[in-house]
């Protein structure tokens, strides 16, 4: 006899485990199936351990500037093994935290690999044994994995995905980062700060292509000033690895070929959904470009079968998956006052040095959508707290609809902006206009004052510039 549940989630990443918690809160008998570690990529191999690594590089960066702050110390040494160990410990602590949360909410955790066996039926395979589960609602939250180069497999030796890059055996002297999205840029920043010679190759004409063009340009300048090499509009013509390293032939913007020999290459060219071996075909679940097609409530079209998070497509962000997790659980429970996610209000963060954060439309996209815009900018150099911190590089940009005063987008680069962006996200969610933002009192001295000034600047009345 199969164990029966009201709600069963396949995959315990941030989307999956949050959905399970919300389902349990709503009184559903809930189970979650995980083939590796609780917490999925985010907690174990993504967001969290990389933030631990980047904290190290942030401190290292400050150590280079000790004198500036009136301190002196012997030349600091880098202990890569300890850096990685700390990152793994942080990941393990949080994975344990998810285990605790599952227990607290009386969610059954099933270890193993899940396969859909029909409507409402799952089999879980573990060590050659199979068990059967029945659930009224099934949620696929299997996430995604790194997309690989067609010509060169990431073997973990010389060619890495994010997963290898997180647990390096030795510090690379030189590194090629292929792809300049958030993942590529974060690793480029980490390794560069710790002393590696880093080259970033981006096919499009600018790095961080989803960000506002001004942010991309500022970021590129900043990284180049730090000593990173950035090649945009560039393509990998040939690439090969040997036990000694990676040899790449890169065609630049100028159409000239250049040869590059590096210790390691990180492939960060996007991700593909984990849709294989789930039994999706038997249920005729629609899959497009490795992602499951769902509606605004996460429904797949098969009654009782939902999907959420990275496996359903971009933006591939943990907080988007978590929000969907709540929506799916509430929809399945028939909760009242349910609202689909507003994609325009999903913030995005890149934890490089400098940090980058944004929400809503870029200036370019706002104009393309037919808005006449008012744009405000405010630089870090005009902010007292930024100067006191010794972080005077960066700016805050806001884009308003001229006719209605709607905040269409906010884009920031500089220290701690990833912690600031939620202020604008709340404003967007509440549909605040420039009036409410202008009337908001921002504490002094904080970096957040720049958000205020940027709004004022959009209407021609900044106070500190």
């Amino acid at each position, binding site marked *: 006899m199969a164990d029966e549940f009201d709600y069963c989630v396949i995959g315990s990443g941030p989307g999956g485990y949050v959905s399970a918690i919300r389902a349990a809160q709503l009184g559903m008998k809930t189970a979650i199936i995980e083939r590796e570690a609780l917490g999925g990529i985010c907690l174990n191999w993504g967001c969290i351990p990389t933030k631990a690594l980047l904290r190290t590089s942030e401190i290292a960066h400050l150590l280079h500037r000790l004198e500036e702050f009136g301190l002196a110390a012997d030349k600091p040494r880098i202990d890569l093994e300890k850096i990685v160990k700390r990152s793994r410990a942080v990941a393990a602590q949080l994975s344990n935290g998810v285990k605790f949360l599952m227990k607290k909410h009386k969610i059954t955790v099933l270890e193993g690999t899940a396969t859909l066996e029909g409507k409402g039926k799952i089999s879980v395979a573990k060590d050659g044994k199979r068990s059967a589960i029945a659930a009224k609602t099934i949620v696929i939250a299997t996430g995604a994995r790194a997309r690989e180069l067609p010509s060169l497999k990431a073997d973990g030796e010389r060619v890495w995905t994010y997963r290898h890059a997180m647990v390096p055996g030795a510090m690379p002297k030189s590194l090629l980062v292929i792809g300049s999205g958030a993942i590529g840029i974060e690793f480029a920043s980490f390794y560069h700060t710790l002393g590696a010679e880093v080259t970033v190759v981006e096919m499009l004409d600018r790095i961080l292509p989803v960000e506002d063009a001004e942010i991309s340009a500022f970021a590129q300048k900043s990284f180049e000033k730090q000593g990173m090499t950035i090649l945009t509009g560039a393509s990998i013509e040939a690439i090969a690895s040997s036990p000694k390293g990676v040899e790449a032939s890169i065609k630049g913007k100028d159409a000239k070929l250049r040869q590059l020999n590096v210790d390691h290459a990180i492939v960060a060219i996007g991700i593909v959904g984990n849709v294989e071996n789930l039994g999706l075909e038997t249920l005729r679940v629609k899959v497009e470009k490795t992602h499951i097609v769902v509606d605004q409530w996460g429904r797949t079209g098969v009654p009782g079968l939902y999907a959420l998070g990275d496996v359903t497509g971009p933006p591939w962000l943990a907080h988007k998956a978590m929000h969907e997790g709540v929506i799916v659980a509430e929809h399945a429970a028939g909760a*009242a*006052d*349910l*609202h689909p996610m507003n994609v325009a209000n999903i913030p995005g963060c890149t934890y490089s040095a400098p940090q980058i954060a944004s929400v809503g439309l870029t200036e370019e996209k706002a104009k393309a959508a037919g808005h006449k815009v008012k744009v405000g900018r405010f630089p870090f150099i005009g902010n007292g707290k930024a100067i006191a911190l010794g972080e005077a590089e960066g700016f805050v940009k806001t884009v308003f609809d001229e006719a*209605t005063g*709607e905040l269409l987008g906010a884009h920031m680069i500089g220290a701690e902006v990833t912690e600031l962006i939620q202020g604008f996200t709340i404003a967007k969610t509440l*549909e*605040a*206009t420039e009036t*409410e933002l202008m009337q908001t009192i921002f504490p002094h001295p904080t970096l957040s004052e720049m958000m205020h000034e940027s709004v004022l600047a959009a209407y021609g009345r900044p106070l500190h510039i």
Partner: protein
Amino acid sequence: MPTDILMPALSPTMEEGTLTKWLVKEGDEVRAGDVIAEIETDKATMEVEAVDEGTLGKILVAAGTENVKVNEPIAVLLGDGESKSDVKENGAATKAEPPKSAPPTPAAKEPAAERSDEPAAPKAPASATGSGGRLRVSPLARRLAKEKGIDLTALTGSGPGGRIVKADIEGAPKAAAAPAKAAPSSPAKMPAAPAPSLQLDARAFFPEGAYEEIPHDNIRRTIARRLTAAKRDIPHYYLTVDCTLDALLELRRELNAKSPKDGEGAFKLSVNDFIIRASALALMKVPGVNASWTETAILRHAHADIGMAVAMPFGLITPIITKAETKGLAQIAKEAKDLAARARDRKLKPQEFEGGTFAVSNLGMYGIKDFTAVINPPHSAILAVGAGEMRPVVKDGALAMATIMTVQLSCDHRVIDGALGAQWLAAFKGFTEDPVTMML
């Protein structure tokens, strides 16, 4: 402690009603279940029963008072040993100010769906009754509404907790242009009734005395409110088909001939009874039409509860033949006759005319050939039935005569796509033209 007797909600959609008559007077003893007052609701006259025993201490709302809000205290009931002196001026049990003078409280206005959870709870707290709640609206939506001249109070919010957001404004109809300037000189003449939009008062065009003024009753207000909203919010589309009725009329003659002369089992089947049965069977055959729209899901109904529009001197009402697919023609005929009779006497219970899954409106008896009907939510479709009349038709390549009835299906496109509506009409036509299949 004295207890307030509150204006009950006698149906899920009732917001206010007219207290037409008190059947007890101050000082009378009442027991639970005693009928104490009569109330005219949206569509019917209802009796109010006492839920507790005691002495009627004070009547707060006089007989004949219109627009009494649901949950407003209407009288005070005294318990053992309590006297009239225990009664404060405006209701006893509730320490709070009576709703009419109370300022709107933030918690006052819950979404309609939540309020209807306990439609008949007479002891609901008075604080939930406020005549107006706080209007929840985003700053951007407020600004857009102002610029576009949209009346926010006429909108339903789609944001969290019913908050009005930008998207609600973008889909909203504009209020009449420059209403303030075009309004008549006497503002007192503006109707105080809930006006969905600021329309020009028709009285501005006519001298006083040139017309008779018939004040709205609840039925008129309900018709105006619901049908305006339905026509505005539902993407209607229409499908028309002709049905040859001769076989049905023949079958009807045969069946009616078999009825006992009078007494228990006597029946007289009307064409409309056949149409209701055919509709019910078509709904079972094409269940996608037997459905209701909600913001989160389409509700597909298990049974065909068919509302039949009944015209009355005081307005329109659609009593419902429930589970019509399970009922034979004689049963449908009997129920339809009974419902129509009681509707005319305003004696229908709310559950007999609220809801339903589909509606039939028949104007054939007035000689109407065909017409277009407005969908009455929660239905997703309504069948407009014209007169069955002799018309020339082409049959087997030659001109012939046949009894033809034109029917038109109005569909809610959010629920029913064109092909689905067409399938339903084909099924309906099939049943009416080969009526023996209705007997199965």
